[in-house]
């Protein structure tokens, strides 16, 4: 029984878009929109005056609505609501799967008025709100949302690593402060005594922010730094053979290999093609405590990189499983990961016992209980085929999951929200009514919060009460 009580009144009025097919080396990528502006999106990209016949594929040249630049020759499908997946007007663009095309179409959609990138699980949630999903179909929805949220979080973490992350956090901080000052001026400016020049200070901060965001958005090179492909991170205690494995998988000498523990100190990354999937392979420092400052920094970076991994290759020395470094790795890294990956959306782990050639043929490898693992010898190449087979399964799961599509979508999202923030700051400067000016700053902050998280009212109030002596 499908239930539609009250669903009709719950029509969301914004229009969302997302890449909804798998990543990896697919020939075709499917990009979907849902919401009342879907028809407009269709017309803007295809130059069609009228929507094509419902639910029938037609071939159109897609162009960027602003620049007119051709993007791709694509199959276009029009699903007017309520007979669509979400119950709203929907459009599907089946485009050629290359990253450049996909990101071009996503950016083009982001420039259509009324369209915004979908939040995690939003398509499914809309379908649910319109009674388009039966209860059994919804069973997995929470898991899906958890997975998408988790994948996006990891994606954001990866993308916002380093410089870009600091930039975003810095902008968010500046903006929050400017907003707090304007809010303080509204709520306390008149019967409490704020210091002179509170508004002027907010204005200065906003102007500086506008300049910074504008130059960031114009600098196209920054976009290129964003990584695409699944993130595979090799980790383990020192001297387990991690660098040998990386060199073997990438078929080139990425890392220096030596018998000395702690040879790899920085994160070394190399893009490789594994079983047909684009992968960013990272070699990291062996995890151990109590060593020199440089190596400690290497360990810190290794742990940081581990948090961003989609797939973790945990490498142990099969001939040295009882050592304290092996045990500590099992306890502090492997066990928590195994507990976590029961949740869908958690990171995937392959546990590898390297140096199988050092084990004597008849002696048992070890008397401690181990989670499922693969035996491998980087020295002889034994076990490599099973490893590649296992990796292929994992990569297919990671890359075939639409939620991991985001490298491209995240880049679009990033630009979309930064541009939205910049536009709102422009409105702030123009507004003569202070309530309208504050609204523009709130809007700008909401846009940035999509990238950095946070952003409640309490944060503003905390700042106000911290910086100003107000109240009676």
């Amino acid at each position, binding site marked *: *029984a499908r*239930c539609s*009580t*009250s669903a009709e*009144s*719950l029509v*969301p*009025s*914004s229009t969302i878009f997302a890449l909804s097919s798998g990543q990896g080396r697919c020939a075709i990528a499917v990009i979907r929109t849902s919401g009342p502006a879907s028809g407009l999106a269709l017309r803007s990209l295809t130059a069609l005056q009228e929507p094509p016949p419902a639910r029938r594929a037609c071939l159109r040249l897609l162009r960027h609505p602003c620049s007119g630049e051709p993007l791709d020759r694509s199959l276009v499908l029009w699903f007017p609501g309520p007979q669509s997946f979400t119950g709203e007007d929907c459009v599907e663009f089946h485009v050629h799967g290359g990253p450049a095309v996909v990101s071009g179409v996503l950016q083009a959609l982001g420039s259509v008025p009324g369209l915004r990138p979908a939040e*995690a*699980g939003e398509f499914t*949630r809309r379908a*649910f*709100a319109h009674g388009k999903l039966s*209860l059994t179909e*919804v*069973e997995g*929805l*929470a*898991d899906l*949302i*958890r997975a998408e*949220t988790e994948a996006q979080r990891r994606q954001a973490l990866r993308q916002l690593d380093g410089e870009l992350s600091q930039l975003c956090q810095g902008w968010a901080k500046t903006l929050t402060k400017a907003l707090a000052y304007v*809010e303080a*001026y*509204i*709520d*306390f*400016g*008149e*019967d*409490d*005594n704020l210091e002179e020049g509170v508004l002027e200070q907010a204005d200065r901060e906003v102007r500086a922010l506008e300049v910074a965001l504008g130059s960031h958005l114009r600098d196209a090179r920054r976009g290129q730094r964003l990584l695409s492909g699944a993130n595979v991170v090799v980790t383990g205690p020192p001297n387990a053979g991690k660098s040998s494995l990386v060199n073997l998988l990438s078929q080139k000498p990425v890392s220096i290999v030596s018998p000395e523990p702690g040879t790899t100190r920085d994160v070394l990354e190399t893009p490789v093609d594994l079983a047909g999937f684009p992968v960013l392979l990272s070699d990291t420092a062996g995890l151990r405590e109590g060593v020199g400052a440089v190596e400690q920094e290497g360990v810190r970076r290794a742990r940081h990189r581990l948090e961003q991994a989609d797939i973790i290759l945990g490498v142990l020395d099969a001939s040295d499983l009882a050592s304290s470094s092996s045990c500590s790795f099992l306890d502090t890294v492997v066990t928590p990961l195994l507990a976590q990956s029961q949740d869908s959306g958690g990171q995937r782990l392959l546990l590898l016992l390297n140096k199988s050639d050092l084990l004597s043929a008849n002696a048992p490898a070890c008397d401690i209980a181990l989670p499922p693992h693969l035996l491998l010898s980087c020295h002889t190449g034994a076990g490599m085929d099973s490893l590649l087979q296992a990796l292929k399964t994992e990569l297919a799961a990671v890359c075939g999951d639409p939620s991991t599509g985001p490298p491209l979508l995240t880049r679009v999202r990033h630009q979309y929200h930064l541009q939205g923030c910049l536009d709102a700051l422009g409105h702030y400067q123009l507004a*003569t*009514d*202070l*309530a*309208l000016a*504050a*609204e523009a700053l709130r809007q700008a902050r909401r846009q940035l919060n999509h990238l950095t998280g946070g952003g409640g*009212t309490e944060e*503003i*109030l*905390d700042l*106000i*009460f911290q910086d100003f*002596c*107000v*109240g*009676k």
Partner: protein
Amino acid sequence: SDSAAPCTPHFDVVVIGGGHAGTEAAAAAARCGSRTLLLTHRVDTIGQMSCNPSFGGIGKGHLMREVDALDGLCSRICDQSGIHYKVLNRRKGPAVWGLRAQIDRKLYKQNMQKEILSTPLLTVQKGAVEDLVLAEPEPGYPGKSRVRGVVLADGSTIYAESVILTTGTFLRGMIIIGLEMHPAGRLGDQPSIGLAQTLEKLGFMVGRLKTGTPPRLGKESINFSILNKHTPDDPSIPFSFLSDSVWIKPEDQLPCYLTHTNPRVDAIVLENLHLNSHVQETTKGPRYCPSIESKVLRFPNRLHQVWLEPEGMDSDLIYPQGLSVTLPAELQEKMITCIRGLEKAKMVHPGYGVQYDYLDPRQISPSLETHLVQRLFFAGQINGTTGYEEAAAQGVIAGINASLRVSRKPPFVVSRTEGYIGVLIDDLTTLGTSEPYRMFTSRVEFRLSLRPDNADTRLTFRAHKEAGCVSSQRFERALWMKSSLEEGISVLKSIKFSSSKWKKLIPQIPISINRSLPVSALDVLKYEEVDMESLVGVLPEPLEKYTACRELARRLKIEASYESVLSYQLQEIKEVQQDEALQLPHELDYLTIRDVSLSQEVREKLHLSRPQTIGAASRIPGVTPAAIINLLRFVRSTRQSRQQ
């Protein structure tokens, strides 16, 4: 349980407390048609303003307009009792204007008592409530028991269908001056101890808060001539939608004066912290600075404002706002005389601190009924708020809902998207509070839509239809205003000229004459330089009729200024309302339900605040998006099985 003797009094709604929450609650219940009893320690303190001699302000003025839109009392009483009317934030946009007035304490009390004592269906009785009469819970509603009445200190019982507690700071109230402490609800009044114990025994979570009040000064002893004088607005803007003007002319109103603290005040505070137990106590004070001690401690070496406010037309007292203090009385006197203009000031009463019990407001639902005891409602400071306006707002809502509950009608809940009252109650019931909660406009997401000017169109019609608590005079007026606004806006939209024609008509507008599309009169009205009067000046036909009512003309201008942003905000409001429309079943036991996958942490959070809707649940910190989806699914499936 129905063994009440024939002569035992029986009311639909009993309200305990005659402060700002209590008076509004009692009057609202009576307006809804309930036979209502207001019980108070002292009839002569009904309507007492126990702290500042003013009403309104930024955010608070918004609350008053909403209380008025629900036909509450305080705005109308203030229009009859003010002695200095001034709108704050005049230059910051009408969405954040703060209606405010200095109020004559005596007049306010008189007018409020007159109103309360003449309200049909409302009885007032003196009496201290010591206990509640409880009975088995009514099936089909949450709660462990049901309130049936109250027991007074003299042992007598009064039966009631609903009971509203508005005891303010009286629950185990304690007054503190210097190192001295004594039990009192307010200076000169006994605290409620029995009632506090009853509530604790019932299982309510009780917390403690503190507040304070400044000393009062003799008017004649202040040297006003050397201070900054502040005059009221001319004309005065009334609080109530029903008032065309206030009772007093601007020239007859009293001025306020401004002075400042100085380093000598700081020194006295800092040298005597050991004599100041209120400041040393660990009881949670607010993050903002209500007392001079907290100002000096947190923001040293600054001059702090002290407003000298009149307490009444013929009062000899001056209220030094900003000087709330709990030092021993002789040190307060010493501190006061350090301040410019107060060198010879006479302290008539010392300032003092109050500590009191409050009940964690996550234990009440948005109708203000408690989760634990059916038909028991809490309103005002008992819920952890501060301020007359916050109390009055809760009072009206509690009064309406106590009455609706008696007739088994659905509760009247104001959403965050509909009013400041909604934000206030949603914040309290979903997040709780650990400091006295005060309304700020920055708490309100949809600030541009929830303005003081349009509270009637937001609330009056709903209140009329769902609660029946609105007089027909108010209803008619709101209806006329709404249709006139709609008509006016559509006429303004329909008038379209080229930008160059507009420039010729109204040369002062900074419009670009290169705009290719015709510009509507509504778009022109957006400019700061234009108002309805200047439009009528050039287009008397058909606009003249919209300036006959000044309020209408003013509201059309405001609607025009915010029009473009409002259509965008409407979309966001709609998205929030979708989640608000998804009701969670009230009988849900979050700790034990099996068919929904929730972590223990989330279960406990939901159990504590019992959100009524998916929207409220999603605002509880720690309730994850995945938990929300699981709840959604659960709601949908229970609704389906109920329909089958």
